[in-house]
């Protein structure tokens, strides 16, 4: 294969930059929408998981149980809305969404504690809103744990260092987020999600638009080859989407206090690989579709849901059924999100994320390679009738 022609490449890059500049709406869409969406989602989600309306059923009515209820009342994560006599009274409140979580302290709570038995405290969470539901469970678990530790220490002190089991049984499900700051795990997830959708959607139009306007035929008659066309189209978009990704990072830091603990160059590399992959997916969609509407639909369908559900953004992957877990390996945002959380939150180095980076690279190479092959083969316009026959 002959090397790429710099002349051809330069012509495409120039043309794309000019066209983007003359279309300020698309430029704004790409550059600022991600940051704006982070702002909206970030606050909405953040607000949602603070002040979760809570009901309490205190079946014990002891000093110990009141102490636990106080713990819940004094955090900003819960808002005590009702104290109920029976567990059965929770249901109607939750159905009307008056409360989203309930704490049920069984009778004999204090007694069990004193006897060194583990009382079963129940946390009931409204699962219909998965986001706030899981978060509520996480917060509640953490509060129980901290309460339980205090009791343990007291017990240990009282008994003079006797052996003691953790007095409270509670399933603790706090995500990678020890300070219980929801922004910390939300922001990287939102970044991956928003960038994936916006970037893919913006390039999904790029080639199909040329087909619709007839300029693609003119290009196919020229000596421009598909690799030059694709690279030339990608370069301006990489630049813009990198700017956009940095705006998102900046906003995450300024508004949500999510600073970058790890190395910036490593983060840049991860972003670059991810963005090129997402751009490649957009180009591929553009290469196989015939109209901008179809391309848009394709781009949204293949990014929005998979990234939202299967990347680990909202639902932890390890809690998914095995079959679903297997599918998540096909979602590039998953690798990006892993790398992002590792580098941003944990300060992980290259050694911890090289696997993810390699997979992102593979995805980028695959999507771009497939696009080049598809465009190179040329859309030889099989008739609609033949198309249907094949389908």
């Amino acid at each position, binding site marked *: 294969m002959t090397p790429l*022609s710099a*002349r*051809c490449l*330069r*012509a*495409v890059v*120039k*043309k794309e930059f*000019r*066209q983007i500049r*003359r*279309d300020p709406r698309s430029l704004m869409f790409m550059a600022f929408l991600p940051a704006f969406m982070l702002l909206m989602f970030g606050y909405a989600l953040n607000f949602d998981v603070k002040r979760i309306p809570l009901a309490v059923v205190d079946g014990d009515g002891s000093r110990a149980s009141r102490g636990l209820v106080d713990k819940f009342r004094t955090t900003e994560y819960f808002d005590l809305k009702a104290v109920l006599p029976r567990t059965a009274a929770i249901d109607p409140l939750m159905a009307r969404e008056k409360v989203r979580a309930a704490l049920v302290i069984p009778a004999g709570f204090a007694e069990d504690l004193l006897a060194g038995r583990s009382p079963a405290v129940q946390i009931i969470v409204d699962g219909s809103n998965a986001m706030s539901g899981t978060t509520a469970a996480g917060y509640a678990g953490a509060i129980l744990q901290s309460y339980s530790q205090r009791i343990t220490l007291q017990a240990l002190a009282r008994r003079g260092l006797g052996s003691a089991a953790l007095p409270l049984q509670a399933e603790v499900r706090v995500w990678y987020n020890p300070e219980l700051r929801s922004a910390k795990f939300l922001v990287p997830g939102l970044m991956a999600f928003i960038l994936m959708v916006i970037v893919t959607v913006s390039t999904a139009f790029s080639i199909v638009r040329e087909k619709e*306007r*007839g*300029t693609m*035929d*003119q*290009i*196919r*008659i*020229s*000596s*421009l080859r598909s690799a030059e066309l694709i690279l030339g189209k990608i370069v301006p978009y990489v630049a813009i989407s990198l700017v956009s990704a940095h705006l998102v990072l900046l906003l995450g830091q300024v508004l949500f206090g999510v600073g970058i603990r790890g190395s910036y160059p490593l983060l840049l590399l991860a972003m670059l690989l991810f963005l090129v992959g997402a751009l490649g997916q957009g180009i591929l969609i553009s290469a196989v579709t015939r109209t901008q509407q179809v391309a848009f639909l394709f781009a949204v369908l293949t990014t929005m849901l998979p990234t939202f559900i299967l990347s680990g953004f909202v639902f932890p992957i390890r809690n998914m059924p095995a079959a679903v877990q297997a599918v998540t390996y096909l979602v590039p945002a998953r690798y990006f999100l892993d790398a992002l959380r590792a580098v941003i939150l944990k300060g992980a180095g290259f050694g911890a994320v090289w696997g993810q980076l390699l997979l992102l690279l593979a995805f980028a190479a695959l999507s771009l390679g497939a696009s080049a092959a598809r465009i190179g083969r*040329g859309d*030889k*316009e099989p*008739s609609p*009738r*033949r198309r249907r*026959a094949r389908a």
Partner: protein
Amino acid sequence: MAEPAIEVRSLTKRFGDFVAVDAVSFEVERGRIFGFLGANGAGKSTTIRMLCGLLDPTSGAATVGGHDIRREPERVKRAIGYMSQRFSLYGDLTVAENIGFFGGAYGLSRRALAERLPWVLGLAGLVGRERSLTRTLSVGWKQRLALGCAVLHEPRIVFLDEPTGGVDPASRRRFWELINGLSERGITVFVTTHYLDEAEYCNDIRLIHAGRIVAGGSPRELKTSVIRNPILEVACDRIVEALEILQKEPWVLETSIFGMSLHISVEDEEEGRRLIAARLGREGIAVHRADRIMPSLEDVFIHKIEEQAGTGEAGEARP
């Protein structure tokens, strides 16, 4: 004789079971203006797109610039320029930017481009409007700019698909002057049109109807060989009445009204003139003039298409 610029053998394109181009064969000599004429849907664009390598033929063969369109599509591309039926420059780029982009896409160096730019601007008549957005130009200008971009890289052969569609008559004439200019530079021009009068500007013509070539030759050959019977242009009084009378005569072959006169096709010029004067005289209609005229290409094509329809073959493949 030199190898033809384009050689087409039984080229066929089917879309499903519909035959859009039905085994067409022809040759185009170098440096000529070759006109491909036919109504909308006749198969002109489909033929061009196959020759340019944009569409795979179903069967048949063709060479363009000596290169086989199936085996050497890349070489074909380098030899040709193409102007598609639909306007296909970037409306959101300026005139100069469009020329710059296509120059780069054809692999022209900066220097070559700098030389070609004024030439294309001159050709399109757009000197001084380099910085206008292309979408703001009138249709005639857009078409000339598209032609300029199609010949930027100095191809030996250009395919122009209905370049004068939707353009006013003055612009059409100017466009044909450009085509003539290209031909004078030795470029082979393959041009399609559905305006029959434009056929007069071509050196060589094929008429395509329902995917088949129904007539061909130079304009002059077509006029003299296809319609052998003389046509008399008759100027007389009460022409509608005269037409009705003559139509009933067995020695009158074809009739039509052309403006203020009648076109009457007869077996023999002298005898026809005499018979017309006698017959109309009997009805008290004075004949002022009855001159033999050359049939127009329109007469030729109408004659050919009617002949084709008469055999009942062409109509069947159509949906």
